[in-house]
């Protein structure tokens, strides 16, 4: 009981300790070596910059998060859907997997010119890019999870007269959940990044757009402020999925 209460707080303490050490090193390096802002601004300067530009940054973060979330949701649906389709119709595997691998082995950013061409410079192209990036990770994780099911357990379900769908729903999906959720957790961060990267190639707004503008205006404090905001947003997203993961996977 007391351990259950004490250990997370210890974990948090250590996490904070790690963060503090990192920030101290950074601050010390930047201040100690008098690094100019265009090499590496001090954390304190970044935080000050962040505060002064908070309105712009919050707006941009909202814009980016919207793209990331919608794309993420879409990507999860597509990835899970494909994996489930493969699980239900094994013949699909040899059709879907090589194609998915080929598509995924080109960096999503590689498609950006085509996606921007096809979907325009607005929000939809970012969503498509995020969905593409997320769906493959989810597909792989989910499939690995679905595949690792115990053959004898499948046999048992079959002997109960369970069809493919029954086996999938009652056995394979629960077996796949830990891997799926791990994939979903990793994907949170990627979704924000892909949204930002695509914004940097052409957008009406968002953190990537802010970063791109700031680079060209040689405002590196603003670049880092935007990166901080992006990090915080991804981290919150990551934490949320991690929280759900722990709630869902009570038996592990």
């Amino acid at each position, binding site marked *: 009981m007391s351990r259950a209460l004490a250990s997370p707080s210890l974990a948090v303490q250590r996490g904070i300790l*790690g963060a503090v050490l990192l920030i101290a090193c950074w601050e010390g390096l930047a201040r100690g070596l008098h690094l100019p802002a265009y090499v590496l601004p001090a954390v304190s300067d970044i935080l000050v910059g962040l505060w002064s530009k908070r309105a712009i940054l919050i707006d941009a973060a909202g814009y980016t998060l919207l793209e990331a979330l919608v794309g993420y949701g879409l990507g999860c649906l597509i990835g899970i859907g494909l994996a489930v389709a493969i699980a239900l119709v094994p013949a699909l595997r*040899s059709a879907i997997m090589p194609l998915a691998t080929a598509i995924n*082995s080109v960096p999503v950013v*590689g498609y950006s010119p085509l996606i921007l061409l096809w979907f325009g410079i607005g929000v939809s192209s970012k969503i498509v890019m995020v969905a593409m990036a997320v769906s493959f990770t989810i597909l792989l994780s989910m499939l690995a999870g679905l595949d690792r099911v115990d053959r004898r357990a499948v046999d048992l379900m079959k002997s109960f007269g369970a069809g493919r769908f029954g086996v999938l729903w009652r056995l394979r999906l629960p077996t796949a959940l830990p891997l799926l959720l791990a994939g979903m957790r990793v994907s949170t961060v990627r979704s924000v990044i892909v949204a930002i990267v695509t914004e940097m190639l052409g957008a009406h707004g968002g953190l990537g757009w802010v970063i791109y503008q700031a680079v060209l205006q040689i405002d590196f404090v603003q670049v880092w402020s935007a990166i901080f905001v992006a*990090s915080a947003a991804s981290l919150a997203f990551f934490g949320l999925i991690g929280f759900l993961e722990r709630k869902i996977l009570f038996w592990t």
Partner: protein
Amino acid sequence: MSGPAATSLSEAAAATRSITMPDSLRKLVRLLLGLAIAAVIWEGAVMLFGIRPYYLPRLSTILLAMAATPRAYVDGFLRTLAETLIGFASGGAFGVLMGIVFFRVRALREMIFPIFVVSQTIPVIAFGALVVLWFGNTLLAKAIIAFYLTFFPVTVNTLLGLETVDPKQVALMRSFGASNRQLLLRLQLPTALPQIFVALRLAASLSLVGAIVGEWFGDTTGLGVLLLQAMFTENVVAIWGALLAAALLGTGFYAVVAAVEQRLVFWSAEQ
């Protein structure tokens, strides 16, 4: 040992081998057939539906354009391959290592893992310029970016895999007096291996992303350079050329990793 059972086993092995040969050949033929069909569909669809080349050029046009400057594609392919491999190998090794360290040393995990997560939330493009600033236009700089994208999923999955080890099996090993090292090598890593390979397959793709994006910071050779160039000269044919080359590289690399996985993780092969 060389009783009748042993003979029948080796016979069985020989039998399986003689079945595998045409099997792999058949797979290859099927693959080539699949590719040919895809090519015909592509070519046919563009001609049939009159798709404008700015949206989708004919496959033959793309292949001819690639054949016109083969050196550019071959050099780019090899260079990107080298960057990818270095990034993948170092990222994979570091990822597994950190997974193990985090698994073993809870305090380190609690201190550093959040920082790893934070590091992954920084878009590469934002700090790619810094990498050029620090490491110049070197192969190393690209490999570092590939490494940066690769190690994290491997760490996460290694950790996850190590944690799924059956405590009863750990207990058994412990009862044999197994040291931590033996526990790791003989039980925990093998148990985690399927999970690690899921991440490595992902990492195969991510390391290529890293290499290509890395080449967007003022490099002279590589598929990323070709892609960027095509992108900004709005040369849709060349974009597709670079995409096809990247797809070939990525799919090939992925296939190699998947093949290694099938060899090493034979026991989890299901259905």
